[in-house]
């Protein structure tokens, strides 16, 4: 994951790094004090009740993975068009509603059973759920493209603030168009999950599953380590160029992320923590696993598209300099359309996953997750794909640990203050590029 930036690596083109204003001693001390306090509170919570602490971290992980899918759309669109698409959260909402209708009205999640009556239940749920997700992605992607075509493209060469304000308008339009009685209505509708919920806790996962997961995961880690070692040898090794390439291969990233997270989470659910006569069984549901797995699959697919395909190359070129990309024969309008389609599709998938975790759909459901994912994208460095991922995980943990150990009503306040802190001390975000000055 770590190698895929929307922008190509800069080779001496960026001359200056414009950092944020250095902080004065007083504020620095304040931040350090605050940090120590947080560490103390969390450390004490862990010491007192490790079971609850680990469970809250798992909860935060699940939230973070959903934010990641939304944040990716924000970051991609920003990276290429330099537009913060405030209607992104509403594309997400439409994705959730599409899957709601697909499941509740069309019964699409059971189509394999309708066509092939003898199909095993597990396979049917898998195929059905994937179909529902794909449909939602298609519809949301289309919606995002339509938005771009009619609302943003006419303003492409106008000042950026015009497009930004239009984005807010589009957002309101979609939200309140959805509220109309013949569209989505303004009711809170219970969402029927496309698969049945199962809760795993200690003793429910067979040991051989864990062994297999760990073997696969360790094999992948070993391969990665071996490739890194090969690549390090530089020109002394004949294969260092191939090793370099393979190390960055999306399949390897996928293996590391997917098996890393799933293995750890599944292992944790088998753990029973006993402290002071109190037993705490860690639990995770299949919803958590689906959210993590689905989110990782989509992110790796995206990173594959961006780093390995012609379209991805064109996207990176357009992100770097639209005018020059056009001179090089790249259809920039097409690239932008594709970006919106991809971003919208990811938002649609995130909508399905979100509705699966929090089984309710509503026409304003996109606002808060949209805002939080935006903050996550900014924390990670807007424009950067790994940044969106890391920022979202940080955001998820911040929220969950605040809610769990500091104060529940403060969760949003703390999460959004994180944005202010990051902007103060690290204005480009974690993976962000400094503003370029071209020569």
């Amino acid at each position, binding site marked *: 994951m770590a190698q895929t930036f929307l922008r190509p690596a800069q080779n001496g083109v960026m001359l200056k790094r414009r950092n944020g204003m250095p902080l004065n001693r007083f504020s620095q001390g304040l931040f350090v004090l605050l940090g120590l306090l947080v560490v103390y509170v969390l450390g004490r919570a862990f010491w007192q*009740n490790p*079971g*609850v602490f680990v*469970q*809250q971290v798992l*909860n935060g992980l*699940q*939230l973070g993975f959903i934010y990641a899918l939304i944040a990716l759309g924000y970051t991609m669109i920003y990276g290429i068009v330099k537009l913060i698409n405030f209607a992104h959260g509403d594309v997400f909402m439409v994705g959730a509603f599409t899957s709601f209708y697909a499941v509740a009205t069309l019964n699409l999640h059971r189509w394999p059973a309708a066509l092939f009556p003898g199909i095993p239940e597990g396979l049917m749920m898998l195929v059905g759920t994937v179909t529902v997700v794909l449909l939602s992605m298609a519809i949301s992607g289309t919606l995002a493209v339509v938005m771009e075509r009619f609302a943003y493209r006419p303003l492409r060469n106008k000042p950026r603030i015009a497009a930004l304000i239009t984005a807010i308008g589009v957002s309101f339009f979609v939200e309140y168009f959805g509220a109309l009685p013949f569209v989505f209505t*303004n*009711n*809170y*509708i*219970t969402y029927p999950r496309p698969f049945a*919920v199962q*809760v795993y*806790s200690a003793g429910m996962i067979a040991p051989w599953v864990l062994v297999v997961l760990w073997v696969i995961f360790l094999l992948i880690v070993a391969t990665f380590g071996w490739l890194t070692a090969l690549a390090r040898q530089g020109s002394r090794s004949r294969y260092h160029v191939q090793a370099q390439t393979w190390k960055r291969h999306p399949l390897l990233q996928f293996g590391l992320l997917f098996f890393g997270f799933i293995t750890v989470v599944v292992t944790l659910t088998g753990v029973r923590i006993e402290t002071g006569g109190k037993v*705490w*069984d860690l*639990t995770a*549901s299949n*919803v958590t696993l689906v959210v993590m797995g689905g989110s990782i699959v989509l992110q790796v697919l995206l990173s594959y598209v961006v780093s390995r395909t012609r379209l991805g190359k064109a996207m990176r070129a357009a992100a770097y300099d639209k005018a020059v990309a056009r001179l090089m024969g790249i259809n920039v309008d097409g690239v932008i359309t594709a970006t919106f389609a991809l971003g919208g599709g990811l938002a649609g998938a995130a909508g399905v996953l979100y509705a699966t*975790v*929090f*089984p*309710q759909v*509503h026409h304003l*459901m996109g606002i*808060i997750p949209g805002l939080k994912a935006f903050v996550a994208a900014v924390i990670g460095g807007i424009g950067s794909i790994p940044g969106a991922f890391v920022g979202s995980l940080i955001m998820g943990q911040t*929220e*969950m640990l605040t*809610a*769990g150990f500091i104060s*529940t*009503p403060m*969760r*949003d306040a703390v999460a959004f203050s994180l944005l202010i802190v990051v902007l103060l001390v690290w204005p480009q975000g974690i993976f962000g590029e400094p503003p370029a000055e071209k020569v």
Partner: protein
Amino acid sequence: MRSRIYVMLALVVSMLVLSACGGGSGAIKIAILAPMSGDVATFGQSTRDGILLAIEEWNEKGGIDGKKIEYVVEDSQCAAEAAVSAANKVIDQDGVKFIIGEVCSSASIPVSEIATAKQIFQISPTSTNTAVTVGESGTKPTIFRACFIDPFQGKVAAKFALDNLGAKTAAVFLDQGNDYVRGLAEVFIAEFEAGGGQVVVKETYTGDDSDFSAIVTKAKDANPDVLYLPDYYSTVNLIAAQAKERGLTAAMLGGDGWDSADLDRAALDGGYFTNHFSDQDTRPIVQEFVSKYAAKFGAPPDALAALAYDAANILFQGMDKANSVDPVEVAKTVASGTFDVVSGRITYDADHNPVKAAVILQVKDGAINYVDTVAP
């Protein structure tokens, strides 16, 4: 063109209504103020239907002291401004002295101020805010309600948890910014602890949260016997789903905010909630009302219809007992009387809030079943 036809139609209809009103000199005229449009229009329709059924029954019996009951319906939209203009219209233009309505507290409160100033009798079927019947200068003499007020449900729920479920420990989740939820939760906590129980977890959240996994995890750690969720169904659905997913086994308990067709019955399976009325209540008065209502309107009555029916009956019985159509006289009779109506035996306390029992309903296997009636 279309709108012009509507305007004409509206004119014709209103003229017909006006001429009809002018006809009966010996009739008693009442006004129904309810939201007939907007997002709570279904509340208004149920309310109106309940009242219409009561009027029809009384008129069949020959009216009150031989006087037939006539009515006007005004759309007050569950909003303060619309309710004020509707109230002014029915009082000044139609000469109404008895108002049944509004549904929402936010609309009932301004109406009650007008009614108090003009000495008009008002009974709200479902407005639960204390300010409807009590103003700055004490209880409003001519204003009543047919429903119990919010905190009462917390009391009943605590009693039910302690006595019927045998609970020793409870967890309470509440939305600090919502008066309804906070009112129920605070009374529940006070009553539960007064009854010997222990509230082991009290967590607050905000209205637009959808992730409750953090507080659910905390509640699971404390392992309470009951989990009190006095919020509306939309939030409760989310909390319950996440609680089930994390293996929280406490019995869930709630208030009338759960009373919705959109309640997630799978996630809340086994949960109990307090309500005003159940159509499964076996008392003959309830069964008679349910069958008559279903025959007339083709659907079983909800709590709103039942309370509206009760409000109308309290008013008519009050008139009958007072032998008067003077609002102040009727109000005095209602304040001191006892009424046997669908939602129980009602007497009024000093603040004109009804003293009556609440029903406990259980969500079980996709159905909502009547469990018990609990008196405070």
